[in-house]
Every structure is written in structure tokens, then in C-alpha cells.
């Protein structure tokens, strides 16, 4: 596309980087072991697979409902625990309120919690506390602490320090400075972040069951392994419905608080 270079002339380093990336891409693609035969076989399998998915089978709706309910409960509890846990940690991590020796460990904790996918944390908890919803709740709480902690910390670091200063100058103790100087400035943003996290937890709570940490994911994985594809389709459709319902609900909450 010679025309594009007229809009933004490509520099030599950029061109070299592009060529390097193209070479890397070719190398990585060769790793996938994708042969035409495999692709055609896959297409055929895929077609059969899609045909078996329909029509969805809602006969075992009781099992389905039980899984969805457990996922929902896990998401709610993990979000509540996550908010409770990330409030103090994010306060400790805010560079404008705390000295560096306090913010560092708090930030490290949040980075570690954020770096592992909830499913990986879930397997560890399954090994530690056994199968079931408890492992899922703990795993989602860890993930929530990572994400909410980061968002809360950033919100606290953006506040105006004048109000904090004003409260402090009246001789208010530390807790009053937090509740009257800091909290009112970040409250609506916190509500927005928390409802976003509830949404994310709802998505992940339908997954962690794949490794045995409770919720609808376990039902889904079992149906997959039994080649019960009609039921798989029913489960996936219900998960999508649950997630969309959750999104509508959290948007309503955000509207109420204008977050």
C-alpha cells in the first residue's frame, strides 16, 4: 500500500521491526502444525460438532439451575470479600497518602494477585481446601483483590489533597481524615469499579468449575467429557444469559450512582 506511506512515512526502524515481526509470525505459525489435511478434517469435525450442539437440551434444567445459582453466589460473596479486602490494601498502596515502605509491599501483593488467572489460583485452592464452592470463592477473591486494589489505588492517587489537608488541619484523627477527606471523593468511582468487578467475577465464576472449584463450569466440563453436546449448548446459552443479565444489572447500579 504505497498510498499509506504518503499519509505517514514509515521509518527504517519501523520497517525492520515489521519485517522481524513477520518472520517471527511465520516461525510461530509453523509451530502450530497446521496441515491442509488437518484443517479439512477439522472443518468436517466442526460441522458435525455444531450439528450435535443443536437443538439445546434443557431437560436437566434443575442441574443447570443449581450450577448457575452456585456461580452467582460465588460471584457475590467473592466480590463482597474482594471489596472488603481491597479497601485497606489500596489505601496502603496509595503513594499520595502513605510512605514508600508501606506502598511497596501493598503494590507487590496486588501485582501478584492480578498476574495469575483466576482459574490457576482456583486449582491451587482446590488442592489446598478441597473441591467445591469455597475454593472458587477464595480464588475469585484473590483476583478481585488484584484488580479492585489497582483501580482503587489509582482513584485514591487522583484525589485533591486540599480537602484532606482541610480535614487534617482541624486536628481530625487518621480515620476521620479517611472517612471525611478521602472517601467522599472516591465513593462513586469505587461503586463503579465494584460493579465492574462483580461483572468480571460472574464471568469467571462460570469458569472455575472446570478445575473443580464449584459453579456451573463443573457441569459444563462434565457434559463436554460425556459428549453430551445438546446439554453443553444449553449450559453455554444459560451462561450467556446470566452474564448479559449481570451486565444489565450492574449498568443499572452505575446509573443510580452516576458512576
Amino acid at each position, binding site marked *: 500500500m504505497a498510498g499509506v506511506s504518503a499519509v505517514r512515512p514509515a521509518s527504517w526502524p519501523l520497517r525492520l521491526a515489521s519485517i522481524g515481526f513477520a518472520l517471527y509470525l511465520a516461525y510461530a505459525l509453523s509451530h502450530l502444525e497446521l496441515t491442509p489435511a488437518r484443517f479439512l478434517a*477439522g472443518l468436517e469435525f466442526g460441522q458435525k460438532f455444531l450439528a450435535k450442539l443443536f437443538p439445546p437440551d434443557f431437560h436437566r434444567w434443575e442441574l443447570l439451575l443449581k450450577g448457575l445459582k452456585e456461580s452467582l453466589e460465588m460471584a457475590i460473596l467473592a466480590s463482597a470479600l474482594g471489596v472488603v479486602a481491597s479497601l485497606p490494601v489500596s489505601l496502603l498502596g496509595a503513594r499520595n497518602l502513605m510512605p514508600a515502605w508501606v506502598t511497596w509491599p501493598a503494590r507487590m501483593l496486588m501485582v501478584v494477585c492480578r*498476574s495469575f488467572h483466576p482459574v*490457576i489460583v482456583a486449582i491451587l485452592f482446590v488442592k489446598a481446601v478441597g473441591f467445591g464452592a469455597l475454593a472458587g470463592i477464595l480464588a475469585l477473591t484473590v483476583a478481585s483483590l488484584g484488580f479492585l486494589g489497582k483501580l482503587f489505588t489509582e482513584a485514591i492517587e487522583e484525589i485533591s489533597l486540599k480537602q484532606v489537608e482541610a480535614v487534617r488541619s482541624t486536628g481530625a484523627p487518621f480515620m476521620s481524615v479517611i472517612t471525611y477527606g478521602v472517601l467522599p471523593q472516591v465513593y462513586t468511582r469505587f461503586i463503579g469499579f465494584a460493579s465492574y468487578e462483580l461483572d468480571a467475577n460472574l464471568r469467571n465464576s462460570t469458569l472455575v468449575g472446570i478445575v473443580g472449584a464449584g459453579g456451573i463450569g463443573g457441569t459444563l466440563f462434565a457434559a463436554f467429557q460425556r459428549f453430551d453436546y445438546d446439554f453443553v449448548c444449553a449450559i453455554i446459552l444459560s451462561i450467556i444469559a446470566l452474564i448479559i443479565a449481570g451486565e444489565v444489572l450492574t449498568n443499572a447500579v452505575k446509573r443510580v450512582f452516576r458512576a
Partner: protein
Amino acid sequence: MTPASVAEREWRRFTPVERGARFAVYFTIVAAIVASIRTVEVIPEFVADAPEQIADLLRRMWPPDLAYYPQEINSALMDSMHIATVGTVLAIVMALPFGFLAARNVTPFAWANWLARLILISARSVNTLVFALFFVAVFGPGALAGTLAIAFHSIGFLGRLFSEALEVANPGPVEALRAAGAPWPSVIVYGYWPQVAPAFWALVLFRWDINVRESIVLGLVGAGGIGVVLDTAMNLFQWTRVAMVLIAILAVVVVAEVAVTYIRKKII
């Protein structure tokens, strides 16, 4: 009628409707938490025992098996990175047309907008792991299934945010091109693309960062990468190896995040 004196008036920040709505939200939250605690199937003894069990697990993980890194972890980790990168590139290729179709100012047909949006929402609603289960069933276990899973799920994210970026593009240059009689490919390449390109590359980087994390999990359902190594080590209760895998994952994820933040600052 004399107005009430200022001192007697009661000042409130929110209207009664707003207060009612807020109360309803608080009430629902508390009710949901209480209902969940009462009905969730958690055995209280397990909760009490959890800290001890977790401490025990951590003790068994120490010290990490450093020698295992060159043996198995390194190549599996590289596989995960390949899955994340190739998956993101495939997602770009597939998301661009849907992004253009979903943007109302680029595609003036309502039915095309809705169709594209429906496809993007569906792709976003089905999780990467579920796509991975599907592609493992279709193409067999391995990196191919993982790459396709990453690609298909990412379409939703990239397409939606790209179409949103397109919709807020300045119509001025586009109109100028149209007035000059430019055909539609030129309108897109010269009118829209230069305006949304930085936002687009920022989105791609952000998604790549997410995909690095997701590619690590894919191995648990047999879709290739470091997850396979992690799963094997766990099933064999080789906790020192598990610890080494976790450390490697942490390092890769943190490095990816730092790199993405650095490049984003350069292009925006």
C-alpha cells in the same frame, strides 16, 4: 405565603427518588450477600481449616525446583507466548471487518450494524476456555486449538472497542474525501484509519497483554502451552515444580505488562 427561613430549611444532596434508588441498591446488595452466605454449599470446618492447609501447601512448594526451568518450562512458556501472539494477530484480521461493519458512521445499514454487533457480543460472551474446549474437540489437543480459542474470543473485545473508536472519529476529513469523489476504500484508508490507528494499536497491545494471561490457562483443557506442564506437575504432586512454573508465569506476565505500558506511552 412566606418562605421558610433559611435556617429552617432542610438541605439534602439527593432527591427523594435518588435516595430511594440508592437505598434499594444497598438493600439488594446486603440481601444478596446474606442469601448467598446462607445457601452456598461451604463446609464451615473447611473454612476454619483453610489457612493451615494453604500454609502447608506453600511449605511443600519451597524451595522451587530451579533445575526444572531449562528442562520443560522454558519451551512450554515460549509456546504460550506464540499462542498469545498468533492468536492476537488472527483476531485483528477477523475483528477489523466486524469493527467497520458495527460502526454506524462507517456502515450506514442498520441491519449490518446489528448483525456485526450480535457476532461481537456472542464472541465476547463465550469464554476463551470454552472456545478452547470446542477447538480441542475439533482439531485435537495442542497449540492450534489454543491459538484459535484466543483468536475467536478476542474478536469480540477488539471489534467492539474498535467500532466505538470509529464512531467518535471526526467526520471532517471523511466528508472532505467524499466531497472530492473518493471511492469508499480511500475514504476508509485516508479518512478513518489515520484517526483511529493509535487507538487501535493501543487496544491490540492491551488485548495481547490479556491474552498472555489467558494462554497460560489453556493448557489445563489440553490446548497447549505452559498450562499443560502446570497441570502435569500438579497431578503428580510435584509441588516444587509447580512453584517454579508459577514463578515463571509471574515473571512473564509482569514483563508483558511493563512492556505494554511502555509501548502504549510511546504511541499515544
